[in-house]
């Protein structure tokens, strides 16, 4: 963990709100995207993300830099998302989360050159959404943490309390599963 971040956490532990604001500004986007993709619920994601930051503020005194702050933050987020999903507090609605972005549409359109490409892209987006949703919980978490939050296998193993080879296996199985379901679209 870099020194600046370490100082910020120490300040948060003393109740400093401007230090807290800096941390929120720094991680809000990556955290929100992670929660969105995990839960598939955009509306609930902001609420969960706020709760994660609140827990950071509450527990800053207990934080020990054994792992990076980001790892700690995402571990809190993972636990909260898991609780939310298990408590069935939210409907797993992935309607908007897996829409392809503009660049994605263009790249795919260039690849395909089909008059029905718009429809195909929508189909692909839907298939991706469905495939992602069908992944087992731990595979989805491992894949999300690696793919979108940039964690190494080691970080993920610390977060998920498992070995590095288990993380490797989870990510590989997740990709294979996605590949099988998306093969007609590739």
């Amino acid at each position, binding site marked *: 963990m870099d020194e600046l971040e370490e100082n910020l956490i120490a300040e948060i532990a003393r*109740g400093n*709100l401007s230090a*807290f*604001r800096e941390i*929120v*500004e720094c991680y*809000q*986007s990556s955290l*929100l*995207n992670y929660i*969105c*993709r995990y839960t598939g619920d*955009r509306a609930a*994601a*902001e609420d969960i*993300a*706020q709760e994660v*930051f*609140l827990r950071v*503020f*509450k527990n800053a005194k207990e934080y020990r830099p054994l792992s990076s702050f980001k790892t700690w933050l995402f571990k809190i987020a993972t636990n909260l998302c898991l609780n939310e999903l298990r408590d069935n507090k939210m409907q797993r609605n992935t309607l908007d*989360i*897996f*829409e*392809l*972005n*503009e*660049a*994605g*549409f263009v*790249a*795919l359109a260039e690849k395909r050159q089909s008059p029905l490409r718009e429809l195909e892209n929508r189909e*692909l987006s839907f298939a*991706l959404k469905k495939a992602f949703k069908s992944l087992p919980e731990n595979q989805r978490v491992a894949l999300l943490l*690696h*793919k979108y939050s940039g964690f*190494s*296998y080691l970080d993920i193993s610390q977060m998920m309390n498992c070995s*590095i080879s288990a993380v*490797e*296996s989870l*990510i*590989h199985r997740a*990709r*294979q599963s*996605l*590949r099988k379901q*998306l*093969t007609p*679209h*590739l």
Partner: protein
Amino acid sequence: MKDCKEIRERLSAFIDNELPLSERMLIERHLHQCPACTQEEIYLRQVIALMDDIRDEIPSRLFIPATIHRVSAWKRCEYVKGHILMPALTVLRSVFSVVLWLLEANADRIRTPFNAYLRSFDDFPPESLSSVYISLIQGESI
């Protein structure tokens, strides 16, 4: 690592640069010789590329103010709890203990039947219904 099955098991870690150099080189060598595993690698890379196309969510403009507000509310709540509620509860507990002690000390006086004092407030005419009622509950003969 010898056969294709083992190589394929490690392809994700290979793509993610999570393997030591020696293993990496071994897989690279295998991929040069094996079209089936190369095809598998291409598929995996395509899946990864497809996932890149999932759009990013942008936090709402109110996200930071709302988060700060939530934390401030919690801080206020903690302040009230620590500086007002807990001391107030301590004082209340002390007052309650004193009251209990006083009650215990004056138990005999308190145990006197309440209707014993009714006559002190009795300014009803002797024949009135209230006077008769008070006499009845005090067990006096009418």
